[in-house]
């Protein structure tokens, strides 16, 4: 692979590139699903190719190819140079890159049990058993399960001298029970909705999730939701379970801090951000107990945003985003770092595949744990609603106003979790919401949730991101808006 990298860099240099970096990536994936006791998807895929990014005349060009031979990668490098020259026709300023040392390294992410080496029969057997356990509950009209595994090898080289190989294995699984009754559809998922839980790691995740144990409870809750009262429309105290809070962080902290959005580079598609440059170190983003970091280091945990180097060869870092409630940092790249006074990129450039350009992406954007236990938090709440497991999510294109709904909620009365509520939802404005946070549970209840489906860019790229969270409490939140008729 290094020969292809070296040859393409040399062709780019000879054709006038002042900077170039290249990624050869080998992606392998296995997808398994079941539905109603039968195998649904059963497939494997692999893809190998090369993408090269160049600066010529101060402008960017990128081209990719699956023709991994000297002629193929040379043509690809030449095409990238030609594209960069075309880009320079509509250039305002030359690209500036923050300096970064050259690294020669190889890194293997954690993976105790290679999921692609585990017999497929065992994987399907587990899914079919969990599927059957859900269907055994009367009232369940649809049962679904899934497992997904990705093995990503990447070879990065740059004209500055870096040569970095990384291997990451991502594993995920989940189960869903759906119940249709009368004029309503209710569902419950475990360990999370929309594909379950995903981590950087191997089959050990699947074993730890114990899908079989949770299947009956998931099914019973889906059926029971039909007879639960509707979540009221009110303003009040809200406690969010960890997985829902993970998505809340993703949408109302993770995306607004992407510096490309802030600088208008995503204005046509994903949108911009309310976190304009003047807000840095001035905005009270959240209450003083809130601390959020973007941490790609292994020390933070095996998340979907964990790596050793980003896709422009910058080592993984931990960046303060919100410190004691104050807004402290953006997600940056080598090209954008200088615009916020940084001498170095925050190391957040990531690409989905060899045929896609690296972009600023979330790493593991996590809310650091507080001091509460869930039991104490509920006991301390006289009147509130506990919501868990996302059902829908939406936020405006500058990331102010959001609305989430969850699969299930419980009423809290007099310090006790009481009856279930169906169709829960809540909404608010990002900074008002985060400033209303008055309790966060401790590290024993902190989970690094994986969001495998974050879409961004044109052409669209799907990326996995990590979000550490433990249950937390928010005051004076607008609840029940999704079903409001007012």
């Amino acid at each position, binding site marked *: 692979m290094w020969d292809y990298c070296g040859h393409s860099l040399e062709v780019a240099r000879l054709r006038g590139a002042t900077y170039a970096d290249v990624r050869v990536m080998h992606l392998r994936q296995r997808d398994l699903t079941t539905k109603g006791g039968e*195998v649904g998807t059963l497939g*494997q895929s692999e*893809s190998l*190719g090369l993408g090269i990014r160049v600066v010529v005349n101060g402008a960017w060009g990128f081209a990719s*190819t699956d023709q991994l031979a000297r002629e193929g990668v040379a043509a690809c490098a030449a095409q990238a140079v030609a594209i960069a020259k075309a880009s320079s026709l509509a250039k305002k300023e030359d690209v500036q890159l923050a300096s970064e040392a050259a690294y020669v390294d190889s890194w293997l992410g954690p993976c105790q049990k290679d999921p692609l080496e585990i017999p497929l029969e065992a994987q399907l057997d587990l899914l079919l058993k969990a599927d059957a356990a859900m269907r055994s509950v009367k009232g369940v009209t649809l049962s679904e399960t899934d497992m997904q595994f990705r093995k990503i090898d990447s070879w990065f080289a740059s004209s500055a001298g870096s040569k970095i190989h990384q291997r990451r294995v991502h594993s995920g699984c989940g189960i869903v029970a759906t119940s249709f009754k009368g004029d309503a559809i209710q569902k419950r998922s475990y360990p999370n909705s929309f594909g379950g839980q995903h981590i950087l790691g191997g089959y050990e995740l699947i074993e730890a999730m114990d899908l079989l144990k949770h299947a009956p409870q998931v099914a019973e809750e889906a059926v029971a939701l039909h007879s639960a009262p509707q979540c009221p429309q009110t303003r009040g105290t809200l406690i969010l379970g960890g997985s829902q809070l993970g998505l809340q962080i993703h949408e109302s902290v993770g995306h607004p801090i992407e510096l490309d959005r802030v600088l*208008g580079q995503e*204005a*046509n598609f994903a949108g911009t951000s309310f976190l304009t440059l003047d807000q840095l170190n001035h905005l009270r983003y959240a209450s003083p107990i809130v601390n959020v970091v973007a941490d790609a280091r292994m020390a933070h945990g095996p998340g979907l945003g964990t790596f050793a180097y980003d896709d422009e060869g910058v080592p993984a870092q931990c960046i303060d985003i919100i410190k004691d409630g104050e807004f402290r940092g953006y997600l940056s790249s080598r090209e954008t770092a200088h615009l916020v006074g940084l001498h170095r990129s925050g190391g957040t450039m990531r690409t989905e595949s060899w045929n896609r350009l690296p972009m600023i992406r979330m790493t593991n954007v996590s809310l650091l744990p507080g001091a509460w236990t869930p039991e104490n938090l509920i006991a301390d709440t006289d009147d509130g609603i506990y919501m868990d497991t996302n059902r829908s999510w939406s936020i405006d*294109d500058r990331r102010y106003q959001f609305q989430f709904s969850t699969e299930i909620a419980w009423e809290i009365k007099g310090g006790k979790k009481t009856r279930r509520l169906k169709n829960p939802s809540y909404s608010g404005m990002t900074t008002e919401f985060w400033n209303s946070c008055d309790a966060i549970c401790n590290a024993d209840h902190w989970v690094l949730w994986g969001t495998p489906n974050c879409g961004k860019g044109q052409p669209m790229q799907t990326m996995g991101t990590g979000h550490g969270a433990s249950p937390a409490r928010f005051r004076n939140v607008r609840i029940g808006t*999704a079903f409001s008729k007012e």
Partner: protein
Amino acid sequence: MSKTKKSRSVSANRSRRAAQEELRRERELHSLTQRILRLAKSGGIPECEVHVEEIIDAVTRFANNTIHQHVAEHGLTVSLRVVVDGRTARVTTNHIDEDALRASLESAASLAVSQPKDAGLLPLPGKQKYRAVHRFIPATSALSAEARARAVKKVCSLAQSKGQVAAGIFSSGQSQTVLANSRGLFAAYRQTQAEFSVTMQQGSATSWAKANDANFRIFDPLALSRTASEKAARAENPAELAPGSYTVILEPAAVLDLVGFLFYDFAATAVEDQRSCFAGRLGKPLLGKNITITDDVYHPGQLGAPFDGEGMPRQRVVLVDQGVPRNLVYSRRSAKAKIHPTGHGLALPNEYGEAPVNLVVAGGKTSVPEMIAGTDRGLLVTRLWYIREVDPYEKIMTGMTRDGLFLVEKGKVTRAIRNFRFNQSILEMLKNVECLGPAHRSTAEESFEMVVPPMKIGNFHFSEVTKF
């Protein structure tokens, strides 16, 4: 951009493309599929389906009145599905040397036999006949990076001359798909596609325009940019209105954004699984009488192959007839013995069955200016954003307005309004359509391309307002 200038630049592009990439010839892919089928047979795999996809695509992306991302890709994938003893599995690869293909076939066979027998699995279909569609426009395939960059430069110059900031994309590409199986089925399709999308920003106000077609000459990037520029200028200093129910005039992109979310509800498998909003409602007057929806890949405003994931010919299907959901789309499996498959099956194996992806919503005769002129008080909506399902059976969707929300008073657009969040049942919405405009091919970001009209709708529910 004048027609003469365009013709000249395309001619120049053709000569440049001599050194550029082109799709492989159909006979080359036919030969590849037959080679794989022979490998399967010699490897003891009695039934095999080969799906080859090739894509050449390029995107010129701009923001802050300059090109900031400019990319090109060329890739070919081979996807193999084998059927072994009543079981099936799929393996996809972009390695097409003989050893790699043989390994992929072995891998697919190994996956297939690792599962229980599937009693509902059908044998592969035999030869089919297809209605021809012509959606490959050489001029689009010849569009160069330089030609796109020059067009973008003009858009950026327009923005600068107006004191505005432009962001968007200009993309062009070509793709082909070939499907063959060991029972003699062979289907091939190729198309070109070009897309231009622009957001114009004036201060904190924005507006947007977008077009997508097989033929890049159908749209004019500069004209689209002028439209967005004029609307952005009108969108400044938005007033805040109270949330509530309003009469809305949805431009085609906003209609597409919402109606597109119904697509999977028309799948027979979704109805059988009782997760479709049409479960238990087929044949009943559910929507307004002025709503008729078909799925029609042959419509001149549509793109896409005339065959489905198993190679079955796509049929035109009337899904909603004057407000009554009448028909669903069927794969071979969901059709079972009683119904004929409609050619909407997804590539097997999958748990979703089928889906219509060429929706056509019948239009009317009322233009958007006429809708505005006939509205005493309402809102004109350019597009919608971040739409998600809140309630799957009542089909309540939430999302935001974006890039131009305007107040209409006494037949005129009077001022810009801050963006709203909506929580609105699509089924209710389609009961309340007061009038429709002519239907055209439309494109947005929340759903795939469709043929839709603008609509004037009563009692559209906005629940909250944002800060801009």
